[in-house]
């Protein structure tokens, strides 16, 4: 299958605007620092990682909501960073965005109908009448009453608003949707409704998803392939089975072991890997492997001096660790010691 989206060496650095001193030094936040992946037509690629690792920034650069600092983005063969005017407009029709917060992303003074018709108006699609019909049809598609076009967001629950956000993204019949934490703010029972809806719509419209989330269980459920990010880099990339059933990077393994599973019996038997400290500051990321300050396997000076490349560990499965192998952290390295090892800040 052909790749619909190809991202190569994507970099996004933000100037530091806190404190004159740091910005004078030319310091930058290395939000995304050399990220490469592809997304095939019709598939769902998951981007997962802890807060601040650069997931949203990656998504925004792809959609040109942000201009990348460096790297190449190709969509259906076109060089996305070079697109101008009409071509950029057409690209933005094809690649839509769904946001996490259904409260903040919908204008409270607009009715659902106005919110949904807006992209059509911007792109000059259809007559007023046709637009209204399309809105009603789309509301029905996402499981809402078509009569709701005259109602306002505040009258609805989080799940219903997220449905409107999805309907809006679908109005221009995009090829791809970047979903940035679309279910993170929702309760489990509503979250399941929205996940099912996204899956049905993918089938119905042949959509391609870039699905951003920090919830590993949701990513596992919805994605075909998964990219795990840490401090602006992809540390592991592969099919969901490979990544979840045989993680090759110690960070992936730690993440998976840290998520409590909803099964008391199993949870009692599991050992969890406690990483020490917090994620370091992306203004001054650690040298060598960025994970070395928290990694239970790090060997010095190798890991603090040489950056491990993202290399193939199995067909279609890559990891960026000098010691990449399935379940790299042995049982005796798991456990509580790290808890009192002190935060490495």
């Amino acid at each position, binding site marked *: 299958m052909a790749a619909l989206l190809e991202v190569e060496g994507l970099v996004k650095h933000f100037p530091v605007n806190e404190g004159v001193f740091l910005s004078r030094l030319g310091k930058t936040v290395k939000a995304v620092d050399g990220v490469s992946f592809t997304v095939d037509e019709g598939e769902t690629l998951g981007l997962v990682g802890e807060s601040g690792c650069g997931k949203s920034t990656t998504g925004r650069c792809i959609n040109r909501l942000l201009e990348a600092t460096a790297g190449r983005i190709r969509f259906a063969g076109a060089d996305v960073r070079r697109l101008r005017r009409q071509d950029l407009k057409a690209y933005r029709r094809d690649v839509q965005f769904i946001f996490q917060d259904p409260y903040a992303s919908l204008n409270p003074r607009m009715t659902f109908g106005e919110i949904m018709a807006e992209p059509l108006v911007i792109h000059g699609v259809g007559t007023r009448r046709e637009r209204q019909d399309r809105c009603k049809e789309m509301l029905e598609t996402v499981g809402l009453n078509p009569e709701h076009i005259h109602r306002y967001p505040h009258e609805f629950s989080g799940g219903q608003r997220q449905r409107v956000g999805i309907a809006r993204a679908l109005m221009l019949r995009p090829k791809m949707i970047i979903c940035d934490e679309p279910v993170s703010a929702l309760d489990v029972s509503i979250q399941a409704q929205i996940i099912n809806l996204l899956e049905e719509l993918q089938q119905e419209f042949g959509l391609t998803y870039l699905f951003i989330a920090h919830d590993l269980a*949701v990513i596992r*459920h919805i994605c075909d392939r998964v990219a795990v990010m840490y401090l602006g880099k992809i540390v592991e990339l592969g099919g969901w089975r490979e990544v979840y059933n045989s993680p090759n990077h110690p960070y992936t393994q730690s993440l998976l072991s840290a998520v*409590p599973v909803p099964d*008391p019996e199993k949870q009692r038997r599991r050992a969890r890997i*406690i990483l020490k400290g917090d994620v370091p500051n992306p203004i001054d990321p650690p040298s060598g492997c960025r994970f070395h300050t928290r990694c239970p396997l790090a060997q010095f000076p190798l890991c603090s001096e040489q950056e491990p490349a993202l290399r193939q560990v199995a067909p279609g499965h890559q990891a960026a660790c000098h010691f990449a192998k399935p379940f790299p952290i042995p049982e005796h390295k798991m456990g509580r010691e*790290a808890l009192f090892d*002190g*935060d490495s800040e």
Partner: protein
Amino acid sequence: MAPLLEVDDLHMHFFTRDGVVKACDGVTFTLEAGRTLGVVGESGSGKSVTAMTIMRLIPEPPGKVVSGDIRFKGESILAMSEREQRRLRGNRIAMIFQDPMTSLNPVYRIGEQIAEPLRLHKKMTRKEAWAAAVELLRRVGIPQAEERARNYPHEFSGGMRQRAMIAMALACGPDILIADEPTTALDVTIQAQILELMQEIQQRTESAIIMITHDLGVVADMADHIMVMYAGKAVEYGSADEVFYHPLHPYTWGLLDSLPRHDVDDKGALCPIQGQPPSLIHLPPGCAFGPRCAYAGPACRRTVPPLVDIEQGHLSACLFAGDAAFIARYENRVTRAGAGAEVGG
């Protein structure tokens, strides 16, 4: 001997301009020393209001305990004088919140804030209290505790603030620690640190924990007993294993089925609960879950089901929970795709 904490058919209502909000409307549980009660339920189901009522932190008006009782070691908290309540709070029963900034004062040093309750409740001198605060910070795994105690809250990371809050709550060696979503705002690797820390402290001090969360993984990890809340009511209460493996209420069934499976290789569609939770001002007649319940019958619309002990300490507020044939409809369901096709952890 009386149990550590008994909550007996508690009703806390808010009298607002729009009507009476039945935020906590029939909550019953007991908590023994050294045990953990997990409280789960969707947003707005009354989890925090229940906790705040136990702490006597809800202003009256607009709130009012309409009926029911809360007993600490056999003595009614509701009947206590304000002074006695204050002595209990922070000293015997302490609370930690989702957002540490709500209980940390930004203009005082962390150490001073932890020392404060020690001077108040334990009559320590300023110097003794400071030394105790530093020791507490060390116990919750803050490195260089002596220097860190001099920091202000904004100089701490999210995970460290949560640790500082735990230190503050532990200062007086409380019998009960109420934790309201203590890890919801944290990343999974930091959540793992905090959960591990709470378990470690509990083993050492024999304190009881009430763990409020919407994350069923967290309750599976922490809880001995579980209370499931829906629309202000406790709808199920029992041991963690009973609630997870033999749930007796259709809402619990729906919650468990909404979760993405973590253990099967075949990803079928999720089974969400249809619809939205009701407004607490206009509760539907009969069972509040009735309109969303896939198993509801005509009787459910007529009678408000009481919370009944079905199997020695396993309580359910479903009219049919005692009916083996009814429960079998859930246990033998085939709707859950992939159920039974377990492929190991």
